């Protein structure tokens, strides 16, 4: 421990920064071991398990640059595929503060990174842990009666919350409804069955006879699981989130599938100035990111659905509309997510 701290202090010293300039010490140490970096949070895959036929569970050992996450948050994971770094958000299933990060990745159509990880993740593989985000988290004072609802791979943030509360020795009353296609595809079934103090109900959409609940979420499922809970957390496909919010308006929610947002019926026709590049285009109604790319610019981007903030840029003037929330920005300078924002009139973007 002492030598580790000493090494870290030496490597982080201004002298070493000068000696390794202009690249910085990480650009040297990473060549010895890819996870040996002070500033860049990275992790090594130490195990890959297959709990269900259509998912892979990865156990990651993060380096010391990783500052941790709160149960329910997502990590923007970076994976190199055919020479390109791809960043996608994944919610860990492991408990807050656990030494290893556990990710369960489901394969699905068009899921470039998920399918790659499902097929290629091996012990020894190194991934980037770009940033942590999301406000799908439990309050510090845990509610007395909590209902969790998840669908498919939406189970992971809920598992993180359950495991975190368990590690705390929580005495709260908890019910958990999880929907999967079938019993075979339900992740964490055995662990949930053995988890004391949690009322677990399974709903299987393709083989209802196997499960505890029939069909999709509705008033009857709510009544069976936990009538009038103090807090509801739902994570899954948009239809599930919508169904839960219909019955529990205050539900905290997160959806993994990109929301289908309508392009504004007509483009504003305003002038978009990408000021730093000296490029200006006339708004055609698509997102600022797409219009920037169409103009030959290469802004950074990640999820393209408005949750990872990789593409965030400074809007220096003008109004933009966020397509996921419908919110209009003010006219002042502020950071906007260009992948889900469209101009409302003239805007200046620092790109």
């Amino acid at each position: 421990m002492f030598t580790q701290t000493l090494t870290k202090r030496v490597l982080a010293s201004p002298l070493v920064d000068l000696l390794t300039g202009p690249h910085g010490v990480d650009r040297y140490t990473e060549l010895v071991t890819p996870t040996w970096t002070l500033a860049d949070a990275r992790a090594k895959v130490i195990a890959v398990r297959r709990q269900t036929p259509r998912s892979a569970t990865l156990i990651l050992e993060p380096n010391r640059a990783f500052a941790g996450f709160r149960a329910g948050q997502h990590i923007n994971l970076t994976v190199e595929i055919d020479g390109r770094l791809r960043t996608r958000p994944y919610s860990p299933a492991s408990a807050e503060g656990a030494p290893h990060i556990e990710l369960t990745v489901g394969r699905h159509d068009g899921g470039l990174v998920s399918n790659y990880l499902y097929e290629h993740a091996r012990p020894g593989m190194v991934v980037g842990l770009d940033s942590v985000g999301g406000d799908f988290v439990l309050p510090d004072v845990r509610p007395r009666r909590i209902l969790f609802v998840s669908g498919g791979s939406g189970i992971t943030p809920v598992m993180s919350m359950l495991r975190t509360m368990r590690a705390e020795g929580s005495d709260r009353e908890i019910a958990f409804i999880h929907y999967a296609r079938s019993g075979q595809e339900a992740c964490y079934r055995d662990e949930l069955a053995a988890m004391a103090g949690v009322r677990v109900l399974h709903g299987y959409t393709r083989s209802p006879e196997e499960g505890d609940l029939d069909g999709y979420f509705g008033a009857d499922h709510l009544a069976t699981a936990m009538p009038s809970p103090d807090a509801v957390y739902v994570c899954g496909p948009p239809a599930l989130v919508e169904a839960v919010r219909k019955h529990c308006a205050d539900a905290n929610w997160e959806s993994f599938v990109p929301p289908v947002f309508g392009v504004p019926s007509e483009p504003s026709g305003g002038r978009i100035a990408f000021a730093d590049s000296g490029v200006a285009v006339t708004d055609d109604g698509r997102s600022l990111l797409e219009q920037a790319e169409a103009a030959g610019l290469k802004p950074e981007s990640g999820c393209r659905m408005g949750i990872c903030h990789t593409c965030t840029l400074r809007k220096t003037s003008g109004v933009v509309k966020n397509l996921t929330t419908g919110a209009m920005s003010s006219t002042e300078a502020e950071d906007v997510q260009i992948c889900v924002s469209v101009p409302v009139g003239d805007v200046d973007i620092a790109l």
Partner: protein
Amino acid sequence: MTVTTLAPQKSISKTVAGTTVTMTPEQADAFGRELDALKERVIADLGERDTTYIRRIIKAQRGLEVAGRAMLFGGIFPPFWLAGTAMLGLSKILDNMEIGHNVMHGQYDWTGDPALSSKTFEWDTACPADQWRHSHNYMHHTYTNIVGMDRDIGYGILRMSEDQRWRPYFLGNPVYAFLLMVLFQYGVALHELETERIRAGEITLADKREILNGIWRKTKRQTLKDYVAFPLLSGPFAPWVFAGNLTANLIRNVWSYMIIFCGHFPEDVQEFSIEETKAETRGQWYFRQVLGSANLTGGKLFHILSGNLSFQIEHHLFPDIPAHRHAEIATEVREICKRYGVPYNSGSLPRQFGTVVRKIVKLALPSRSAATAGS
């Protein structure tokens, strides 16, 4: 680059080594389309191979640097000093040419790797990366060889074109050129200062305060590293480390100067006037890039150490495709040029550099007749 299409377009014509090359607007368009198609094909093929290549070069560079500096600590023994200096010199050459110059062109931006990002990369030389990106990527690559716009023609201190009016100052052309070679990293660092405009009274030093601050910040750290910190760390061996670092920087300066001067200054490379490049089409822009650049012949290692700037023509046609791809497409580019009758200037380093030296000396004196100027 001006891509505005203004009808009717004029034919373009240049006399290269006594032969006049003419292209009609239609020919120029077809020429441009063929080159565009070639570029699209390479871009569609980019992938793991390119990322692996540049990471291997980076690994070699960092390895040479660390090993070279370690050897110099034992530099009191001549073999160690020589090996250490050579390794550090090679490391700086790789860092500046095949890695720095090319990464900053955005050749690897598609990888999404922050360590290979043109926006943030910084190189091991006195010139701040952001200033380089403006003067080189934008100004030089857009206005290549247009006298009065491309400040790489003479860098504001040399007379490298007949079209630059002679003044008695230029009698010192060979001396300035020699000093620029030896101090090349500082010459490059001062590029954005536009000293010739300051001397001409167009702007004052105060207008360039921010540029100057940027140069000072970068040069200060580079100097502290090579000439203070590493020598002091070696204790009693400081003089050997200091001398090794100085020599390594000199090796890099001379090498990069030679390669870079061979890019646009050899015999028969064409210059252009602002007038003749007005309303240039994309095909005509490509035409200018070919006629305004010259290649160097050599082996694989030579190309890597030149940062593949030995494929200057390909680099100027497609500055943002990974440079190691230029060798692969050179045959095809040459074949396209041949079909359109566009001369493709290529020669060995001694031959090309010989003509550059001759030009430097010749242009120290006033042009013999007005007829040779602007031909």
